[in-house]
């Protein structure tokens, strides 16, 4: 089947009941959607299907003929962040990062459908994405800022090269 992902058309060969999540990650090597629970509970795999937020683990390829998919990779680039991405950076809203892709996509979809989304709308729209870090204050603040247009992508310093982690104990994860 053919699938448009981030404005690029792909020919997919995975079986029709393969989840969009598995096809994105394993066939197309697009890894921003995270495989957390694979059953719709965690929200980390959320992508946009024709502009609407969907759990990619719950959508089979067979249901996607002719649709257009957007993932975090399609929102912006390191030196050209989308407003939601820039707001997450400014507000230090990433936490451990595993749930971040889902939060960013859900927030992007929310602001798209409700440009004047208030705090209650934001809490409701993000409620399917809370994980275990707790402390969602910064995430909510980031989305509130993005909804108000109070973001400054030009001030974000792009970091193209991941910094080399300092290994204090040889053989241990840094």
């Amino acid at each position, binding site marked *: 089947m053919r699938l448009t992902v981030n404005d690029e058309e792909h020919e997919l060969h995975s079986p029709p009941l393969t989840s969009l999540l598995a096809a994105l990650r394993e066939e197309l090597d697009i890894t921003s959607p995270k495989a957390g629970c694979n059953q719709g509970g965690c929200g980390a795999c959320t992508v946009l299907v024709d502009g609407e937020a969907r759990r990619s683990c719950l959508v089979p390829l067979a249901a996607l003929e002719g649709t257009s998919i957007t993932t975090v990779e399609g929102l912006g680039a390191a030196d050209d962040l989308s407003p939601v991405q820039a707001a997450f950076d400014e507000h230090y809203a990433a936490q451990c990062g595993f749930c971040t892709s889902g939060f960013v996509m859900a927030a992007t979809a929310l602001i798209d459908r409700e440009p004047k989304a208030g705090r209650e709308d934001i809490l*409701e729209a993000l409620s399917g994405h809370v994980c275990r870090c707790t402390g969602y204050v910064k995430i909510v603040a980031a989305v509130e800022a993005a909804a108000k247009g109070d973001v400054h992508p030009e001030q974000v310093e792009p970091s193209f090269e991941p910094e080399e982690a300092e290994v204090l104990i040889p053989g241990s994860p840094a």
Partner: protein
Amino acid sequence: MTSTSLEAAQVVVPMSRDEAVKEFGDGSGVTVFAGGTILMPEINYGRLKPARVLMLGNAGLSGIGSSGSALTIGAMTTVAELENAPEPLGSTARNVADHEIRAQGTLGGNLCAPSGGGTPRGDLQAALIALAATVKTAGKDGERTEPVEDFIAAGANGRLVLEVEIPEPKRSGYAAARRPHAHAYTILAVCAAETSAGVRVGISGAGATAQRARHVEDALAGGASVEDAAQKVADDAEPHDDALASAWYRQRLLPVLVRRALDDLGGGK
């Protein structure tokens, strides 16, 4: 119609209601795929390896229409589209999971949802019971329409849900035990509605499927107070233990929720 046959399964995508009915036939060997929120985890984890899948997304089975004082709701109408439906269906729909899941899960899927891990999953069922909904299905002997509680009790085997019809209620009430932001299935919910047939009460979360609280309804019809009628629910349901709550807790909570739903009904919403 498009038909894709690959190694894992044959996927049939009917492009109309008639095609869906024809492809469903008597339902044998057919896995019906509606929103996918319950089926996809089964497929992802390899617990379900369907041979033939009927994918209903393009079958024209979604949408809400009104005729006179009744609403007709297509089986593929999403839970999100029911958020503003007449009460108590609207409140029930808004209490389902989160935005993304509500936008994907369907009315038909909810009606056919089996319990999972011992926890009932058809959160909309109690509201439909209270509203005296009827369900139109297709299957071996053609199409038929029956009360929703009969459909739920018999199970979906061999029947393809096409649409649900609900009469506009005169009054309605709703009470539920929720775990905010946990997005679990409903621990317990009680729906009440007054239709031309009198007051009806539906319960979600006190059995594998939702059920009608006939003892409560009969007590109300006989002139009992709300308080006394609510106690009769002990004769209607035998709550169970599951991961969400114990039977002990549900037994104590259930009459309280029945009373609250009936009090809510008194508000004349």
